């Protein structure tokens, strides 16, 4: 057998988007989506590092039941800032702003995003939001929890609430602009022949994510404005002492912040669809079900915010409706997991690093998703809400899900982005270390949570220590595992093996141009005549039909 010949540029040019222009100015004023993706990559990595340091401090403090490593006031700031940095400045932009920015135009055969200047503007807005937030952290920090619950945040907290809120407020606009750019690009700039149902599922996932970004983010902006308004001018909106309603804040906050979870996980699901299909050389089983389940998640995601309020004295009947809808939103995620698994049937699976992340994702996301059902179930949620069970659950979704997808995608597209290969052996090793470390960190927290350990506790009763020791041990392994890719990615940019245009031998559009791509992505506008994930050469697909016979006929 011989490698399949997909179209490749006959003579790769020496000029690509990285060396097309030199100098700081050429980067800071670039309108190239690929360069902007790299600017984002650098910035979110910086924030990830800060958020990781906070995580380290949390785990060190919780090693012993007494509050001995940090003062309680400091600890409260540390967990608050861990949440704010990781959610708003790492997870929400992570995949869309880096991999999405780089790949959305390339995967649909476009030269750039629809609004290149707005794309650059979104990075500057992100940076401004980040600078304001870092100012708030350095000036004294914030201790409200990333949830900013009122009236603590508006009246009682003595920390930099407004400055931090301003940082998040500003940052939100970068999200909105990215979402807007993606939607317009996907609608109007697909290459000839790239019909909606030929699009890679990564694009569908980004389309669904962009809808949430555009529709949800304004609500958090309004909520933060109201919060700042009450804090500064003492007009009663949320504080009952001023005539406000503290629960109103929670409704507004979660109306954005629950869908925000889907902003974090949907792009990761898009990455996983790519990895599963491409590393098993098989079209995704039930393509349209996976595509539409992303949209279903985006829509249903807006209707479940009330499940964060089951113990706030929200009406019992409202609770029941929100519980029902929360179970309903789990179904599209289950459909995805089943389809990914079925894709592997009679496929050709490679054990490259990205595939290890994808397989890890499926396992961790299954646990994360299933434990979400505990929290959707009213009576059990009453016992579990605000305990470590919740902490474990959302880390399984955000780290086990979103972060695994991000790392898997980063490895997968690294040769395209940088033109260099990462060291495969180290890649596999660190993927395993991260998987083990992650589970050791967060599995014990499910048990601690059911036993009743409340979250956001700086000191805790001694009966919970065994779980915290396990968690801290796991977190050390996890932290070590994260350092390995950080080191070899930087190393590979200079010393890594040169990557071919199509190192994985795949049919996707992004692999039909040189690595790294030229500034305009493709030398000629591609004409798409194939379906997504169509691996077999064209003649062969003719023989077995467009996609091959139904499962039962094989």
């Amino acid at each position, binding site marked *: 057998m011989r490698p399949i010949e997909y179209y490749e540029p006959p003579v790769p040019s020496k000029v690509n988007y990285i060396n097309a222009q030199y100098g700081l100015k050429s980067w800071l004023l670039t309108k190239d989506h690929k360069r902007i993706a790299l600017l984002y990559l650098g910035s979110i990595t910086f924030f990830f590092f800060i958020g990781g340091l906070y995580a380290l401090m949390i785990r060190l403090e919780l090693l012993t039941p007494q509050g001995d490593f940090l003062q309680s006031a400091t600890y*409260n700031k540390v967990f608050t800032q861990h949440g704010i940095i990781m959610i708003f400045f790492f997870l929400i932009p992570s995949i869309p702003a880096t991999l999405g920015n780089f790949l959305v135009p390339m995967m649909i055969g476009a030269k750039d995003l629809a609004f290149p200047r707005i794309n650059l503007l979104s990075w500057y807005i992100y940076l401004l939001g980040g600078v304001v937030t870092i100012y708030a952290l350095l000036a004294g920090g914030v201790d409200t929890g990333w949830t900013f619950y009122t009236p603590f945040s508006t009246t009682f907290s003595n920390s930099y609430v407004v400055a931090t809120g301003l940082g998040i407020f500003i940052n939100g606009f970068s999200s909105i602009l990215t979402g807007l750019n993606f939607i317009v690009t996907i609608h109007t700039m697909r290459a000839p022949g790239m019909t909606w149902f030929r699009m890679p599922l990564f694009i569908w996932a980004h389309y669904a994510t962009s809808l949430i970004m555009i529709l949800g983010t304004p609500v958090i902006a309004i909520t933060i404005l109201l919060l700042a308004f009450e804090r500064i001018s003492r007009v009663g909106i949320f504080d009952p002492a001023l005539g406000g309603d503290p629960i109103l804040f929670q409704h507004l906050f979660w109306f954005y912040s629950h869908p925000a979870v889907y902003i974090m996980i949907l792009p990761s699901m898009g990455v996983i669809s790519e990895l599963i299909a491409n590393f098993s050389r098989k079209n995704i089983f039930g393509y349209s079900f996976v595509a539409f389940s992303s949209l279903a998640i985006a829509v249903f995601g807006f209707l479940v915010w009330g499940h964060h309020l089951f113990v706030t004295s929200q009406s019992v009947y409202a609770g029941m409706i929100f519980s029902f809808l929360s179970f309903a939103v789990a179904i599209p995620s289950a*459909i995805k997991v089943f*389809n990914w698994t079925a894709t*592997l049937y009679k496929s050709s699976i490679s054990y490259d690093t990205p595939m290890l992340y994808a397989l890890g994702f499926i396992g961790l996301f299954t646990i994360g998703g299933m434990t979400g059902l505990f929290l959707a179930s009213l009576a059990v949620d009453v016992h579990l809400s605000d305990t470590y069970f919740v902490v474990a659950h959302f880390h399984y979704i955000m780290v086990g899900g979103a972060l695994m997808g991000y790392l898997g995608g980063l490895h997968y597209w690294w040769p395209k982005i940088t033109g260099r290969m990462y060291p495969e052996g180290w890649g596999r090793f660190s993927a395993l270390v991260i998987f083990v470390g992650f589970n050791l960190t967060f599995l014990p927290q499910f048990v601690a949570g059911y036993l009743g350990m409340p979250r*956001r506790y700086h000191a805790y009763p001694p009966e919970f220590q065994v779980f915290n020791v396990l968690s801290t041990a796991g977190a050390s392994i996890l932290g070590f595992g994260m350092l390995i890719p950080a080191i070899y990615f930087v190393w590979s940019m200079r010393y890594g093996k040169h990557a071919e245009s199509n190192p994985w031998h795949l049919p996707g559009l992004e692999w039909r141009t040189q690595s790294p791509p030229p500034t305009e992505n493709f030398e000629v506008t591609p004409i798409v005549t194939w379906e997504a994930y169509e691996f077999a050469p064209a003649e062969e697909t003719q023989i077995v039909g467009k996609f091959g016979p139904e499962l039962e006929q094989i």
Partner: protein
Amino acid sequence: MQSWIPLVPDSASTFSWQVDALYFYLSGVTLFFTLLISAVLIFFVIRYRRRTPYEIPRPIAGSHKLETLWTIIPFVIAMTMFGWGARVYFEQYKSPTNAIEVYVVGKQWMWKLQHATGQREINQLHVPVGRKIKLIMTSEDVIHDFFVPAFRTKMDVVPGKYTTLWFEATTPGTYRLFCAEYCGMNHSGMIGSIIVMEPREFDNWLSGNTGNTTPAAAGQQLYQTLGCASCHGANGEGGRGPTLAGVFGKTTQLQTGESVPVNEAYIRESILNPQAKIVAGFGPIMPTFQGQISEDQLVQLVAFIKSLPAGGQTQPAAPAASPTPNAK
């Protein structure tokens, strides 16, 4: 502690086993699907590993039958979880009648509790087994949350309103009370204990702590000193203001034509913000008491109004009888 690492906390209320049963069901389903998917994944990954570098498997488009199957089965399972969870939740929120009432005020960073018979406690609550206990809770500052893992129940304690929580303890012992809603600097220090006693011991404990004024009696004094009596009558029989006696637990007609239930929240609101819901036939003449009375005093006034019998007969709100039926 029964085993080396316990999987469930102590069980000490009538909810405990109900929540545990559902939790075990959820855990079983989770374990089943996690193992199923992991096993299938591992099997496929080994069985269909890439054997030659350039092999291309035959494409499979998908199957509507399978898609339908794995949409419907998870949905049906999810609905059993929903139904079961909702049923137990509904029971937890059906506020019992004939419960012993305890007033709870949360503040940064302590719990203040008062029994209907007057005993005050801080960060501790003594309750008898086998009786329904209803907590009527509010906060002086930020949102707190009254969480007793051994009872498998919790409820936010929200400033500006009353929330309620009830339970029936089943096993004597001392159990942890946590504040579960982050409330500021010493959030993790806002913990206490629930001491569940046999009814006889509880009666002894109550009688050993006499000499306290009951909330209702204290409320009666406030009622006089704040001048409530001049409009609502010395015994709540009404006058320029609406009747207070015997209205608790019923509904009342408002000026707007609406009817509202007369509960703790409504009485509280009417004291602090009298113009919000005016009873039909009365004018907006009552002044606000916002800022003039504390949450503790509000609780006492509410307790007094609740204690007024219908008809406005003279009734000394003096030491209420011990709530346990077999008390002396």
